[in-house]
């Protein structure tokens, strides 16, 4: 989230699309009801289903899953055509006026540089014209046909209301009503907030779904302001934290990157991260990359990371592929290229697409380690449960370790919420049985491995032997110790660069924030963006002062928000070019003549002149991007692509199946179906009574929604002779499930390009362990396809067939 949950109370219009906040985030949704009740805010819901969010919406419009980009580009076109643009904002804070390099073009659904063999683009032409001064060439009059604004207008010209209806199945009058309501927020005094979640990410073009809305928000001037923003409603309690800390194949904590093998040494690695500003006076904050990287390396390898060995650069693995994400990991298992796997509080057997492939892959492992407070189907994937897990135990050679861990009630530490707040929590009870804290388990595994390398030697033991392990009890590191490590500390005494006599931080002391980090090895910080969370003032994540001056919803003294306790990102954009708030009613920060001040921590150097420094300091432009250059693998502008399995052909580019650069493995192509065989458009989701697969184990939640079902329209039920509350079978090439049928008016057939499309909704939750009734799930049916940019599986749009059935034999 660029903003916070509590900031939503400041909005005038909430658009829930690509998510279902009322269902998945009820207590966050509270702030929508508050905005409605106290500000007269309106709520729009655009979803294939009339959801719980829709039940309290002011306006609901149906849309076919996987067609959001067409809808959003249609809205952008509507706003531009009707001059519903916040011009001052667009001119000041976006790259609308930048001139795009000659050679860049878009045709028949493809941008320049496509290689069908590699399913990849050569993105060389996706860039700006650079002038002699080394800065981008601009045309502030927006007359140049090659400027971003005009390129954008040309690119979206096809997304007329008629086209939107053909692609999305959204009746024109409904689409126009939504577009009209949204366009009202182009005035500086009206803001819209976008609340989205996995309904946008879980597509083969998920990232572009989000970009489309981000572009719309920029055009309306809604980024960086109170009550605005792009608010990704993260799914899990600390998924934000795990991403921040970079528990991903290609990340280093704080969104730094693991080197690729082309970056043969540290100088090469760091040179490709120069991030020279593209406009005069811009901050281009990534220029500090070396400071953060070196500090991280010091936190990892302490004294073993020296200037001489490039701070142990070689200790880091070098990637030969863009990413070893989960889909690739299971593909590798299936191909016999991976032999061991750890699942820490994760249940891939049910959570990942194409369950058949997951079972097959796990069965080929030599060893599997599952750490969890609860039973998981993954830990028992080898156990036969009749129709619910039909495997032959004897033929599965995997050795499975199941380790009991603590749950939230027993552990201590910080979780990062969707609004980037790091909140500390305390243990309320002792560990049950033999259960142990995850920290204890990870420490034991590391220490044992280290011991084996000490005793036996082996392949490149250095990074293991030299891992910095500064804990009072090495076998049981405490949360407090690790939190200090994440914040960062001075390795050597730090002195003021301008006045070397002045000591800023004594050696061994916590650094106040990331501004104090250095690239000479004198500082260490586990995760630079968290720097400040545990500094000289102590554990700021444990702060519990809930005061909120002038009820802005900032709560600056409650816990700690990264970066630098900032609550709203890009908050400089809340004020106009001269530093005056766009909306006097909704001041956030303003320029008082000398510095930036207000209700939030300024996003730019507090004394930087308003007309000099742009709000988007992480971009070399200092401004936001309507045209994203080569940052995205699948195009600098979003374009409509159908899901890999779609009930209709792509009307704008009939020749193209799915997203041309989506992640697809050859071995999976055979499992894709087409609309002739599988005519119904299925989508998967979670119910408010449940939390993924965990609440199967929670008696009360099992009671509230006990049994696996699918939701279909009355029309489809009649067409296929399925009875309300009766059993039905849903299947495709990947699998088959049996479920109760919920026949509802909340799902209506959509007319797409003249033909009716029936939607089948398949909620997830059920498995073969826990208190809830045994059941199957959508992932026996979902396709093994990933988003082009971040490989998120396409859980939200696939094809199935459906018929009445007699229910599972072992129900």
């Amino acid at each position, binding site marked *: 989230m660029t903003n916070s949950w509590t900031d939503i109370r400041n909005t005038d219009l909430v658009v829930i699309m690509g998510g279902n906040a*009322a*269902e998945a985030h*009820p*207590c966050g*949704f*509270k702030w929508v*009801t508050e905005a*409605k*009740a106290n500000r*007269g805010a309106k709520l729009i819901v655009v979803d294939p289903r*009339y959801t*719980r*969010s*829709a*039940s*309290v919406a*002011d306006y*609901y419009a149906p849309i076919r899953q996987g067609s959001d980009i067409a809808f959003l580009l249609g809205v952008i076109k509507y706003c531009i055509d009707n001059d519903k643009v916040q011009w001052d904002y667009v001119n000041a804070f976006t790259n609308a006026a930048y001139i795009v390099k000659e050679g860049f073009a878009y045709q028949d659904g493809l941008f320049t540089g496509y290689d069908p063999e590699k399913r990849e683009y050569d993105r060389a032409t996706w860039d700006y014209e650079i002038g002699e001064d080394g800065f981008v060439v601009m045309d502030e009059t927006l007359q140049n046909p090659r400027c971003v604004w005009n390129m954008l207008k040309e690119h979206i010209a096809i997304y007329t209301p008629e086209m939107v209806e053909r692609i999305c199945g959204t009746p024109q009058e409904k689409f126009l009503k939504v577009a009209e309501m949204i366009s009202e927020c182009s005035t500086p005094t009206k803001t819209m907030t976008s609340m989205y979640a996995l309904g946008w990410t879980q597509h083969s073009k998920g990232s572009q779904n989000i970009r489309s809305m981000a572009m719309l928000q920029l055009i309306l001037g809604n980024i960086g302001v109170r009550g605005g923003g792009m608010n990704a409603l993260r799914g899990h309690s600390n998924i934000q934290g795990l991403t921040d800390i970079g528990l991903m194949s290609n990340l280093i904590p704080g969104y730094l990157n693991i080197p690729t093998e082309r970056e043969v040494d540290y100088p090469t690695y760091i040179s490709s991260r120069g991030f020279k500003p593209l406009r005069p006076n811009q901050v281009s904050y990534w220029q500090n990359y070396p400071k953060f990287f070196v500090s991280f390396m010091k936190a990892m390898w302490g004294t073993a990371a020296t200037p001489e060995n490039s701070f142990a650069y070689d200790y880091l693995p070098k990637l030969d592929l863009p990413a070893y994400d989960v889909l690739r990991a299971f593909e590798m298992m299936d191909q016999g290229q991976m032999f061991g796997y750890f699942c820490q509080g994760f249940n891939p057997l049910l959570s990942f697409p194409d369950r058949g492939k997951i079972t097959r892959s796990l069965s080929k492992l030599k060893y599997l380690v599952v750490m969890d407070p609860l039973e998981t189907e993954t830990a028992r994937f080898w156990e036969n449960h009749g129709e619910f897990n039909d495997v032959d135990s004897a033929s599965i050679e995997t050795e499975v370790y199941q380790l009991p861990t603590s749950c939230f009630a027993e552990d201590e530490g910080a979780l990062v919420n969707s609004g980037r707040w790091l909140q500390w929590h305390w243990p309320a009870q002792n560990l049950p049985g033999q259960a142990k804290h995850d920290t204890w388990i990870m420490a034991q595994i590391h220490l044992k491995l280290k011991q084996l390398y000490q005793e036996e030697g082996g392949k490149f033991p250095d990074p293991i032997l030299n891992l910095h392990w500064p804990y009072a009890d090495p076998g049981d590191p405490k949360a407090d110790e690790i939190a200090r490590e994440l914040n960062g500390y001075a390795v050597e005494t730090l002195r003021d660069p301008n006045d070397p006599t002045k000591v800023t931080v004594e050696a061994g002391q916590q650094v106040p924030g990331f501004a104090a980090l250095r690239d000479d090895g004198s500082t260490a910080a586990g995760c630079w963006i968290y720097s400040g969370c545990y500094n000289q003032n102590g554990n700021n994540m444990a702060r519990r002062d809930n005061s909120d001056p002038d009820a802005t919803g900032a709560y600056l003294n409650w816990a700690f928000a990264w970066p630098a306790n900032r609550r709203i990102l890009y908050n400089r954009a809340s004020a106009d070019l001269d530093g005056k708030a766009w909306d006097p009613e909704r001041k956030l920060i303003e320029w008082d003549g000398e510095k930036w001040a207000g209700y939030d921590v300024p996003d730019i150097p507090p004394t930087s002149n308003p007309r000099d420094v742009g709000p988007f300091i992480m971009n070399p432009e200092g401004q936001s991007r309507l045209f994203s250059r080569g940052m995205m693998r699948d195009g600098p502008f979003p374009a409509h692509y159908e899901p890999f399995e779609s009930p209709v052909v792509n009307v704008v580019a009939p020749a193209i199946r799915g997203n041309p650069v989506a992640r697809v493995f050859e071995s999976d192509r055979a499992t894709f179906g087409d609309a002739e065989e599988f005519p119904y458009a299925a989508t998967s989701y979670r119910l*408010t*009574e449940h939390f993924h697969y965990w609440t199967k184990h929670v*008696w*009360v*939640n*099992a*009671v*509230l*929604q*006990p*049994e*696996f*079902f699918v939701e279909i329209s009355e029309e489809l039920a009649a067409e296929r002779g399925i*009875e*309300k*509350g*009766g059993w039905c079978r849903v299947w495709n090439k990947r699998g088959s499930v049996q479920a*109760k*049928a*919920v*026949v*509802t*008016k*909340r799902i209506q057939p959509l007319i797409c390009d003249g033909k009716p499309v029936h939607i089948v909704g398949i909620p997830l939750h059920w498995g073969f362990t826990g*208190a*809830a*009734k045994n059941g199957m799930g959508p992932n026996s049916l979902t396709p093994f396809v990933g988003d082009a940019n971040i490989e998120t599986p396409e859980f939200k749009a696939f094809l199935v067939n459906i018929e009445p059935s007699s229910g599972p034999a072992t129900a």
Partner: protein
Amino acid sequence: MTINVNPPVAPDTAMQMGPQDYIRRSASSVPAPARQLEAVAKLIDVSKCIGCKACQSACLEWNDLREEVGVNAGVYDNPHDLTPNTFTLMRFTEWVNPETDNLEWLIRKDGCMHCADPGCLKACPAPGAIVQYSNGVVDFVKENCIGCGYCVKGCPFDIPRISKVDNRSYKCTLCSDRIAVGQGPACAKACPTKAIVFGTKEEMKAHAAERIEDLKSRGYANAGLYDPPGVGGTHVMYVLHHADKPSIYAGLPDDPRISPLVEAWKGVTKYAGFAVMGIAAAAGVLHMAISGRNRVTVEDDEEARRLTAVAPGAAPLDPSKETLS
């Protein structure tokens, strides 16, 4: 008393509510309470409700209830009805508004309405099994309940359920144990959108008025408060977008009142019955006094002997005996 503090772990020992505040006690009478507690109410704003069932969940947890894991019956309602363990239940209705032709998903939290004039209490034959506090809370006292099910017949909202396990009647207590220490009900505390709020009845009516205004501004011309006078008003009230037709909300009674049959059973029958029985007994006594007992006379015995000695048309007597006489 809008609740905005966490439940205390060391509550004030002087309970804020207790037996001294009874204004009604089933099948028995109570002295007029020394003090009058301020009337409380739970307001359920159906237009804010997202049907998340947090209220059901919080109710089960606070009251330490365990419901059975049921089945899916083709709807979202689970369990399918109120039970001795389910004091509150979300009822879902898919309603197409004939005026707009738009689908509206009406979600109503069902449960005890805490009537000012409680039919359950009127029907209850067990002294102290049902009590009403001066703040409006109507509570069941299981220790005194005999499980006869009269409350089920008395309730205009079909709320109480009799447990097959301990043969006692159960329903929402409005979390009387929480109110007693100055807390609101668990459901209101949990409700994510504050569709359920709790406070004094006056506060709640005022809040409802604001909500109704907001709803009217959003096109719900018939938005209104459900506080049915037929039962003297309730201490659980609804804000409805279509207050002109409560029954579309999963059969919420349009004009609830204690059934005339129950009134008759608990009223006239009771008194007329006693009268009739009394009269019958009295008549007997009186008659006995006037006419004395109906005695058999010597003549009657004589006649009987004569008749039975020789009965006309009787079989002839033994000839030998004949000769003897």
